[in-house]
């Protein structure tokens, strides 16, 4: 079987790509996608740990299911907010949204 650390490396890579995306991308939708990458990295960790360390218990699977549902809700709300910003300013780049400064 593939050793556990392979999954952890992939998830760490996903997480780092996500963090980089959040910090480097200027487009709101791209930042949202990067956040989703980070959540999925955590999800992958949880499922991998569950499968390798204690597949007889269901707590890992339950955790993963709830994370999955929460991530979907977050994406839905995030897209709705991005659309409402776009309708106001015709731009979804957070830095250009600069009415608030001080």
């Amino acid at each position: 079987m593939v050793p556990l650390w392979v999954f952890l490396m992939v998830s760490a890579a996903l997480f780092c790509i996500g963090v980089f995306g959040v910090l480097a991308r200027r487009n709101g939708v791209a930042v949202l996608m990067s956040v989703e990458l980070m959540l999925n990295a955590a999800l992958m960790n949880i499922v991998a740990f569950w499968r390798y360390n204690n597949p007889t218990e269901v707590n890992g699977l339950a955790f993963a299911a709830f994370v999955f549902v929460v991530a979907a809700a977050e994406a839905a709300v995030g897209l709705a907010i991005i659309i409402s910003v776009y309708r106001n300013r015709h731009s979804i780049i957070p830095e250009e949204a600069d009415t608030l400064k001080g």
Partner: protein
Amino acid sequence: MGEFNVWTSLPAVAPEIGLTILAAVVLLLDAYLPKEKNRARNIAFVSAVSMAVLALTPFIWAPAPNTSELFWGGMVRHDALGQLFDVMILLAGAITVMIAVDDSGVGRRGEFHLIVIIVTLGGCILSSSADLVMIFVALETVSIPLYVLAAFRREDNKSSESGLKYFLFGSFASAILLYGFSFLYGLTGSTQLTAIAAGLNSEIVSGNLVAVLAALLMVIVGFGFKISAVPFHFWTPDVYEGAPTPVTAFVSVASKAGSFAVFMRFLIEAFGLPAVSADATSTLVVIDGQTIQTFWVNLLTVFSILSMTVGNVLALRQKNFKRLLAYSSIAQAGYTLMGLAALQAQSAIGQDIAMASITFYMFMYTFTNLVIFAGIILFVEATGRENIADFAGLQRRSPWLALAMTIGLLSLAGIPPAAGFFGKLFLFQAAVEANLVGLAMIGVLNAIVALYYYLIIIKIMYVDQGIDEDKPLAMPRSYAWVLGITSVVIIILGVIPTPIFDLAQQGAAAVRLAMGS
């Protein structure tokens, strides 16, 4: 835990069940009530009264005294601390609905009140969570609706922008937090906090000190965002200024109180407390000879000093009232972090006071912030301006409003007879009990700096000449009730703080005993 029994488990989640039913009812009301003038007002009335009544349920179905039992398969704890946090979050929800009623942008739409109920529900679950799954779901149940509320004025640039910023930073923080959680689960094979502590203390984790510290760091970053502690505070001023004012009020109390409650539980239950005397056992998690508590206590001490100082110094030069309160709330988070740092106390009384002082501070802060925000909403609705200078001569325009806001500001500044005095006193006492005299001194110095900008506002309201001083402000009845009740509560808490503080201390002792130290 024993055999699972639904009926004995229900009291632990009584307010949550009530809120779920209320949310379903309000949803149907909003869908089916005929369109008429007082529609949203009726919905608001139902929501506010129900939440205020639900604030009694933690007392009716109180936990057995001096216990902190686990229910629902280890998902939630039922104890006096959680009970106090439930009460303050429920009252915050009720008051927010009341002060939003006459706000033109938000309160006249039914779904606003529904979303406030759902945030309140999340906050109540959050304050008694004892499991990683529960903490994450509750934290998001608080956060996701708050993103919606911040962007609630869709046609307003500032509001949707503040929603976008809040969403992007908040979801980033949640993702980091979750990644930390995934490692804690992976290393110990458990999601229940006390089981995680047991797992971390066992052989299987030895050699993984770095992984545990990294996971802990990520969790601290995540919670740091939610409580707006420096250096994770940069979203706060923009969100506070841009969001509709009732939402700002709610963000500053509900999200903060819930996050502090669960942050405290997480640190205590997953990483243990020191032994309270020479012959008592320590529950601290020790990995490879390193005590994990040393790490987070020192980190939080640094964050506490940074938050107090940065918050107060930046607040000094603010002109917008809501921005000033944002920096003030960062500083208040700094004071409260002092209580978390004081959890390293090596005496029973020290640990109890640390937990109780955080609870009491959040309790009084809820009312204090809400009275000030209610005043701002009333003022901005009438005049359309929210700079501090615009409040000049408020005393001549509306003496009762000026008085209520003065009580709130005195409480934030920590001057008796307002409740803030005891709030700060208990926190400083906790720091001294934990031999953190230096930290307490920095706290006192910061309180003196803060005094300046709070007193300036009072001076502006009472002494300065305003441009339209001859125009009195009308006071709608709902605001009169809110301002009156919250001001009276602040004064009562400031004169006789002992009932609440004693209850918090009993709850703290119960948590400490449940940990086995």
